[in-house]
Structures are given as structure tokens and as C-alpha cells.
């Protein structure tokens, strides 16, 4: 017996729904839980009459009686009806929440996104991820996330299975994934299975909501930072739906009034998804996403950065009865375009287009689950670095990667599940077959989800890299290109082991340790005079750390405390180092190596009010301190005439050893209070709050060449409003 469990209104697959099959004449049970596609499968059912119960937190339980004959294969897909929510009722599920992590994986629901105070009327995935331990955001500008020591270009973002390159907006609270559009997210901080390939750090697999197939609805919101319109409804009632959204920043216009100075940041995104529901056996959707970001990190510097994503893709899920099979297909094109420089003269640009076809199949043999698939990815990469000198200046390249993967889930002694798998592909970049073995497991020693030991080990390769400015964390221009080193792939070995414990009374706790071994990571070649360097050298790396999470959910409270310890070290050998530092090999902690991080969230409902607090502490990030400044004179062509006009020389920063010093610690408190009003046609929600309540001058970026420091946003009070129809 198999099927897909969805929500009746939205059609979204419900992950973690419980399916219980009880034989009526006896007291025997069989059960299963749905996966991320809402798919379940129960095998080895004897002929007879059964009572079927399907339950999911926040939804009405579905019950039915079934007669199952011998050698019969049955498909039972059910759309569960959502319980009527009392106003502001908090719906929680054992499968949701930041307190539960299983081998690097966290399931994030749209409810989770709304818990983090955000300077708009709704939550956003970008704000939420920054509230988790192990994730370093270098500031509230730039949209860069460093996950467990991985760099932003090593993260894989998927939107309904379609890759998107840089979905986080330049103002770090916002992304192409606002709460209203997101159904759920599978977030792998490491140790991900073979279904995902092409990146070596993490996977953020976002499932977007389908439009309402029965009723047309909409919402509009505005805050000093952003406005957002969203609408959805049926195309053919009950059969197909659409959902569309437009989001645009306001901060550039409001910042002089709100923050006391202009923040030259602009961003926006447009999204449309059309879904057809083919009865209980198939769902297909087509989506389009466009994002645009533009900004200056330093207002005194003429250089600005722009980037844009365009994704057009299709996604189909279908069930087959003979054999029992879940079929999943993704097809589309995803482009990112980056540019940096002054308005008149762009200095650097990069454009990358990925065409992809992914076919994924899921089937069972006895109790063993097989997930396998084939894919073809074709990348067209174009880049142009208009620099004075450097390595790869400009070029274009096609890279084709056909391949396949297999992951099995084998239950052993009911309490242990092991998931060995492998991804195998041919890559143009190397001209050969490459395979990446992966292994995940989870063990529930007492047979319940309340206690679970989970772990993963896997090998990961990446053939494309995003080259950024060497000045490190403050830089956001990223040029995608094939790895311009002797070895054309980055390599990471992940190992992680964690324990999750439900403590009762609404508490759950998890602790996960991780180790990553990195090879062939391209790092900039260091010099004293260039600011953007595209000469690269390979580095080895090791990352180790641990994330601790404690979560409490009990109406009217929600609280979360996270602590992350991380240590990232790179080792690189460069020609200059011998002369510069006396040793050709340098060990250093890169610019995003945050050693300690504490995140705390607190939400409370008081009648019609919801209060939210978010606090984050991060220990200082490394930077290379200068030993001083001077002007260097050149003797190689002719003797410098210091007393002549030509004898000034070139300004030079005398840099010390790499990243030996650390910036001050980061510390921010955000606050919000929200109230909802019921209107005749819908709901009005008003939120007031402030980010950086302390008004602390958190350092975002320090330019050692100009000695200008750029702080993160000062205290930013805001009032936002949202109206939605019901």
C-alpha cells in the first residue's frame, strides 16, 4: 500500500504524517510515516479487513476501513483537512522545530519562519537560518551564509527541486523565500544523501506552497524595509491553482529617515507558480522566479554590486501502481548574473546558466526503500574580470554532467535504519566518471522518536566555485567559474554524529558534532597591493565543531537556545609566503571562522498579542591586521627620483600574517510585538518592533586600505502592516 498525504486546501505534501493500519480481527498494527514528498509505503500486509488512520498535527485525523486482498497493490492518497485554528493558535509538530536535528538535517516549517523577529510583516528563511547555531552570517548586508565552515558558493539551494544560485537578498533579513510562500524546508547542514550533488557544504531544499485550489485569496504588506503582494487562487476549481508574489525593497528610500543615513540597497523578487492536481496520483507544477539585488557596501566607494537570478522550472510527482513507484521529475533552466564596479564602468561580471533534468524514483522491495534517479546538468559559464593583473581574466565554458544516484533505506531490528548510497556521474571538467559514496543512519534505542542517535559520513565533490574578493567576509561579488587549479574539483569529507532527546513537558534537546576534511579549496593568492585578486592557490582545510539546541514549545510560549562551536582552519602554500613569513606554508582561520555563537529566540502569546525576541551573539571574526602603510618605490625599470613629481610611489599596506587578529564580537537583540484584528473580509496584522535594540555598533566590514569601518544597521524601529483576505 502506498500513497501521498497532502493538505486539502493547499495540496502541499505533509512530511511526517502517521499512517496506521490496524487489522480489525486482531490487534496487530502496521505503520509508516510520510517522507518529504508526503509519500508513504507499507509492505507485507496480509489479506484482511483493516482500519486505516492517518494523522498529522494541526489536521483532522482521517479514518477508513479497507479490505485488502492477496497480491493486491493499493494506492491510498489522502488530502487531510486542516483543523479550524483558533486565533493565533500555535500549531506544532514533533517533526518541526529547531530542537530536532537528524544527521545534519532539520525540517523547517513555515511556522518556524514566523518565530524570528523580522523587520517586515512576516518571517523569511534568510532571517530564520541566521538564528540557528552553526550558521554564520557576516552581517545584515550581503546575503552570505557560511554553514558549518562552508562558504556561500558551497551551499545548494533548491526551490521545488529547481536550483537557484543566490536567492538571499542584499539586505540579510530577506530572501526569495518569504514565509507566505514556503511550505517547508529540508535543511542539511552537512552529511546529505546522494540525491543532492554538486556542492560540498550544505543543502537548503525549499518546497514552495501551491496556490489555493478552491478560493482566491491575497495579502498585502508594507514595512519601512519592504513591501510584498501575494495572491493565489484556483485556475480550475479543485483541479489547478496559481500563486504569485511580488516583493520590493523600500530601505533605500526610508533609510535617511529611519536610520539617519541612506542605505544604498535595493532588491526585489517576483514569483509565480501554477499547479495542476491530477487526482490522488499526480501533481505537476511550473514555476518562475526572478530576483534582483543592487547595492553599495561602502557608500564612499563608487563600486557597487548587482546580481540577479532567473529560474524557470517544472516539477511533477506521480504515483504508479504497477509497480509501486513514486516518480518525481524536475526540468528547467536557472541563471545567475553578477556584476561589480562603478555604474559607468563595470569591472567584473559573471553569468552562469544551468539547464537541468532530474528524474527521481522511489520504490520499495519488502521493507527496503530504494531512491534512485538520473540527471543531466549542463552549465554555461561566462566571466570577465577587468583587473590590472590576476589569474583567470575572462572566459566561457560549457560543462555537462550526466549521472545517477542510488540511496537505500534498510531497516534493521526495527530500531536501526541505515541509508547507504552513492552518486555516480561523468563530468566534462575532469573527463571521467566520478563517484561519491554516502552513508546515513539513525538509531532509536527505545523504539520511539523521543531518543535518537543519528550520523552520516560522505564524500562530496564540487566542480564550480564562486570567486570572491580576497578582503573576505565583507565582499559579496561572486564570479562562478570552473575551478582554475590543477585539480578541477573541491573535495569534502563529512562526518557527523548527533543525539536528539525529547525531555517531555515541551522540551527537546539535540547535540551534534561534526568534522569536515577539505581538499583543493581555491583561496586567493596574497599580495600587498591588489584588492581583488583572481590568482588562486589550493588550500586544505579542516572544520570541526558542535551544535547544541534546546527548544521549548508550550502554549503560550516558544523558546529556543542554540550554541554553536566551530573551528575552521585552512592550510595553503604560496610562493610569497617563504619571503613574507619565513615559511612557504601558512595555517590560518579564514574570515568567516566564528568560534562561538549563541542564538536565543523567545515568543509569547498574550491574548491577541504576540511578542517576539531574538538575540544573537557571535565571537569576533578573523581579519588580517596591517603593520602599517607606506609608499613603495619601484627600482626594476629605473632608479626612482624621490625629489621629482614621478617619485611618489605606490601606496602599500604592510599586511601582517593572515587572519591573526579578530574583530570585536557581534551582538544583537531584535524585538517585535504583533497584534491581529479580524475584519469583515479578512485579517489585519500590525507589528511594531526594532532590530538592534541596543543600537550597538556591530562591525560589518573594515577596509584596511581606506581604514573605513562599515557598521551593521543601527537601531531600526519599524511598524509594519499586513492585510490578508480569508
Amino acid at each position, binding site marked *: 500500500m502506498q500513497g501521498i498525504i497532502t493538505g486539502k486546501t493547499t495540496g502541499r505534501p505533509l512530511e511526517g504524517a502517521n499512517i496506521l493500519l490496524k487489522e480489525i480481527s486482531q490487534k496487530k498494527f502496521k505503520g509508516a510515516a510520510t517522507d518529504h514528498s508526503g509519500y508513504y509505503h507499507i509492505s507485507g500486509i496480509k489479506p484482511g479487513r483493516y482500519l486505516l488512520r492517518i494523522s498529522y498535527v494541526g489536521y483532522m485525523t482521517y479514518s477508513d476501513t479497507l479490505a485488502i486482498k492477496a497480491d493486491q497493490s493499493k494506492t491510498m492518497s489522502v488530502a487531510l483537512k486542516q483543523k479550524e485554528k483558533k486565533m493565533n493558535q500555535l500549531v506544532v509538530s514533533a517533526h518541526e522545530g529547531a530542537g530536532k536535528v537528524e544527521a545534519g538535517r532539520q525540517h523547517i516549517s513555515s511556522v518556524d519562519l514566523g518565530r524570528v523577529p523580522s523587520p517586515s510583516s512576516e518571517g523569511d528563511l534568510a532571517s530564520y537560518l541566521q538564528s540557528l547555531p552553526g550558521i554564520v552570517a557576516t552581517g545584515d548586508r550581503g546575503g552570505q551564509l557560511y554553514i558549518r565552515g562552508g562558504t556561500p558558493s558551497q551551499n545548494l539551494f533548491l526551490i521545488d527541486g529547481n536550483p537557484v544560485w543566490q536567492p538571499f537578498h542584499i539586505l540579510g533579513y530577506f530572501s526569495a523565500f518569504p514565509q507566505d510562500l514556503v511550505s517547508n524546508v529540508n535543511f542539511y547542514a552537512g552529511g546529505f544523501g546522494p540525491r543532492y550533488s554538486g556542492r560540498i557544504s550544505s543543502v537548503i531544499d525549499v518546497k514552495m506552497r501551491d496556490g489555493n485550489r478552491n478560493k482566491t485569496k491575497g495579502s498585502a504588506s508594507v514595512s519601512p524595509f519592504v513591501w510584498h503582494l501575494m495572491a493565489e487562487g484556483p485556475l480550475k476549481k479543485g483541479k489547478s491553482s496559481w500563486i504569485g508574489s511580488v516583493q520590493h525593497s523600500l530601505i533605500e528610500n526610508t533609510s535617511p529617515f529611519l536610520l539617519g543615513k541612506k542605505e544604498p540597497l535595493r532588491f526585489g523578487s517576483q514569483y509565480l507558480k501554477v499547479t495542476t492536481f491530477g487526482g490522488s496520483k499526480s501533481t505537476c507544477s511550473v514555476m518562475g522566479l526572478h530576483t534582483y539585488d543592487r547595492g553599495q557596501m561602502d557608500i564612499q566607494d563608487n563600486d557597487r554590486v548587482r546580481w540577479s537570478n532567473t529560474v524557470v522550472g517544472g516539477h511533477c510527482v506521480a504515483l504508479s501502481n504497477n509497480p509501486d513507484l513514486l516518480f518525481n521529475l524536475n526540468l528547467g533552466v536557472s541563471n545567475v548574473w553578477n556584476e561589480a564596479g562603478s555604474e559607468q564602468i563595470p569591472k567584473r561580471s559573471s553569468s552562469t546558466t544551468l539547464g537541468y533534468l532530474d528524474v527521481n524514483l522511489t520504490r520499495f522491495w519488502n521493507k527496503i526503500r530504494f531512491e534512485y534517479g538520473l540527471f543531466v546538468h549542463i552549465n554555461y559559464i561566462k566571466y570577465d574580470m577587468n583587473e590590472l593583473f590576476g589569474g583567470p581574466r575572462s572566459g566561457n565554458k560549457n560543462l555537462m554532467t550526466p549521472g545517477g544516484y542510488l540511496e537505500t533505506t534498510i531497516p534493521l531490528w526495527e530500531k536501526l535504519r541505515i541509508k547507504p548510497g552513492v552518486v555516480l556521474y561523468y563530468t566534462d571538467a575532469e573527463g571521467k566518471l566520478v563517484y561519491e559514496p554516502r552513508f546515513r543512519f539513525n538509531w532509536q534505542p527505545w523504539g520511539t522518536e523521543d531518543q535518537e542517535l543519528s550520523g552520516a559520513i560522505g564524500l562530496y565533490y564540487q566542480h564550480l566555485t564562486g570567486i570572491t574578493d580576497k578582503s573576505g567576509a565583507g565582499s559579496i561579488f561572486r564570479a562562478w567559474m570552473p575551478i582554475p587549479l590543477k585539480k578541477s574539483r573541491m573535495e569534502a569529507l563529512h562526518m557527523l554524529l548527533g543525539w536528539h532527546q525529547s525531555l517531555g513537558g515541551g522540551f527537546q534537546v539535540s547535540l551534534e558534532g561534526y568534522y569536515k576534511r577539505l581538499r583543493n579549496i581555491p583561496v586567493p593568492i596574497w599580495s*600587498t597591493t591588489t584588492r581583488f585578486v583572481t590568482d588562486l592557490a589550493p588550500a586544505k582545510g579542516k572544520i570541526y565543531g558542535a551544535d547544541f539546541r534546546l527548544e521549548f514549545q508550550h502554549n503560550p510560549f516558544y523558546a529556543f537556545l542554540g550554541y554553536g562551536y566551530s573551528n575552521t582552519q585552512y592550510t595553503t602554500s604560496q610562493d610569497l609566503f617563504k*619571503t613574507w613569513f619565513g615559511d612557504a606554508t601558512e595555517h590560518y582561520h579564514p574570515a568567516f571562522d566564528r568560534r562561538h555563537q549563541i542564538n536565543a529566540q*523567545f515568543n509569547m502569546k498574550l491574548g491577541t498579542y504576540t511578542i517576539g525576541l531574538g538575540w544573537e551573539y557571535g565571537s569576533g571574526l578573523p581579519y588580517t*591586521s596591517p603593520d602599517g602603510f607606506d609608499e613603495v618605490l619601484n*627600482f626594476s625599470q*629605473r632608479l626612482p627620483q624621490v625629489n621629482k613629481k614621478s617619485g611618489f610611489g605606490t601606496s602599500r599596506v604592510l599586511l601582517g600574517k593572515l587572519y591573526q587578529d579578530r574583530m570585536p564580537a557581534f551582538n544583537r537583540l531584535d524585538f517585535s510585538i504583533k497584534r491581529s484584528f479580524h475584519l469583515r473580509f479578512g485579517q489585519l496584522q500590525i507589528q511594531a518592533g526594532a532590530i538592534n535594540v*541596543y543600537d550597538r555598533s556591530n562591525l560589518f566590514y573594515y577596509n584596511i586600505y581606506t581604514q573605513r569601518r562599515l557598521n551593521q544597521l543601527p537601531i531600526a524601529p519599524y511598524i509594519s502592516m499586513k492585510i490578508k483576505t480569508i
Partner: protein
Amino acid sequence: MYLGKRHIWVLSGLAILSLLIIDSCDPAFNPLAGSDKYDFSIYGYLDATADTQWVRVMPVRDSLFFSPRPINASVILKDNQSGRRVTMHDSLFQYYQHRYAHNFWTTMKLLPDRSYTLIAKQPDNPAHSDTVKVSLPKDYPTPRFYKKQNLVIIDSVKNLVDVSVIYHYQGVQGNSGSIIYPHIEDSSRSSGRYSVNLKLDHDLYELRDYQITYKQIYVAASGPGWPDFSMIDKRIESLPNGISNVKHGVGFVAGIISKTIPYKTCRDAKENVVPCP
């Protein structure tokens, strides 16, 4: 579990207060605090044939030098053989807008094949003192020039460090000046003799709109310790200690003997090419 509204407010208040207490102060951030690895940046050369010696001495400082300010430096030139010391004169130069530097000068007569020491120190803090030992080369014969072949012959020189052509011009509005083009790359060495086959096409193309009144050839040879720039990576050259010969500081000071000859061939009575007087 039952919590009254009063308890809830108290709990919330305590939570907010504890977060505010933890740390809301702005920490100081001064990336250059305590950095005293280098004292001075010293660049230039000492030339035994020059009337005046010019050397750039600037403190290694905490910022780029965008406006003039006192630099707290005194510079002494010492003859290592005789022990004679002179204090060099400080002179502030403006090169471009907001670009300044201090150059130190003296008219002390320098002799070939002698060594000198430049000492830069902070008068109020003698512990901060940088020194450069500069050795001047032996004198060498004035180079000969074969105009027909554009060939300069330089004998008895160990390190040829500069060969340039100086173009003196007269502007249409009566202004005049000179432009210098380096030609060290045109030189080659064999049997202890340097030959410089001057390739002037590029210079003449660039100067096509100038009225050149006369040309000179400038040649300089250095003493020991001259780095082989043809073998040194540009990035190494720019490192603080890449080519530095300044003790406790950064920079490079060369000891040279220069010769400037007219762009013409001089011959003796037997029509042999000889150095021009």
C-alpha cells in the same frame, strides 16, 4: 502548568533585562593599535656623482598620508670609513593633491667605493631607529655611444641598474622640460662589458607631438647588494621584506655612480669612438 498574566509579564521582563545586561556596550576596534613592527620606510639612492643626495624617509604609519603632518624623524648620513656624520635636511614634498612625502637631503660629498650608513630615528624615542648600510661601487669609465647603431658600451661595471634616455623638449607655448624613458631592458652583458642596444621607436612614437631639442643618455651602476630584478616576482618586490635592506624598517636604498652623456658619438683624432667629455 498554569501561569498567570502577572507571572508572564515578570518572566518576559526578566528575559529582556537579562539580554540587555549581557552586553550592550560598543567595543573598541583599532586594528593598528600596538603595531610597531616597522619604524620607517626608506627609499632612494646615494650617488657619488651627484651634488645633492635625496632620500625618502617616512614613518611606517597608521594610515595613508593625505595631509602634511610632523613625522618625528631625524636622518643622519654617516661615512663608515671616516666616521663623519651629517644630519640631513627635511623637505616636505607635495606630489599630487593630498599626496605628500618627506624627503631628506644633504650636499655632503660622497666617494666611490666607500660605504655609508643612513640612520633614521625618532628624536624623542631613540629606541626606534632604522639603519641602512649603503656601499657605493668603484668608479667606471664614461660610457661610449655609437649613434649609428644606437649602441651604448659600458665597461668595468658589475651591476648596471639604470639606462635611460632623457628627451629635452621645447613646447609650442614656450614651455620646456624633459621626459625620461627607461631602457635597462635593452641591455645585455658579456665578457664583463654591458652593451645597450637602444630601441627608441616606442619613445619617439609617444613623443611625436613634442619638439625634441636634445637627448641625453643616463647610466647608473650600483654597488654590491643590488637585487636581480629580472628574477624577482613583482609581488615579492612589493612585500615588506621582499627587497628591503633597511634594518628594523622597510624600503631599499642603493649606492650608485651615475653618468650622463650626450646623445652623440664622440671620436678621437684617429676616428675611434671615445667617451664624450
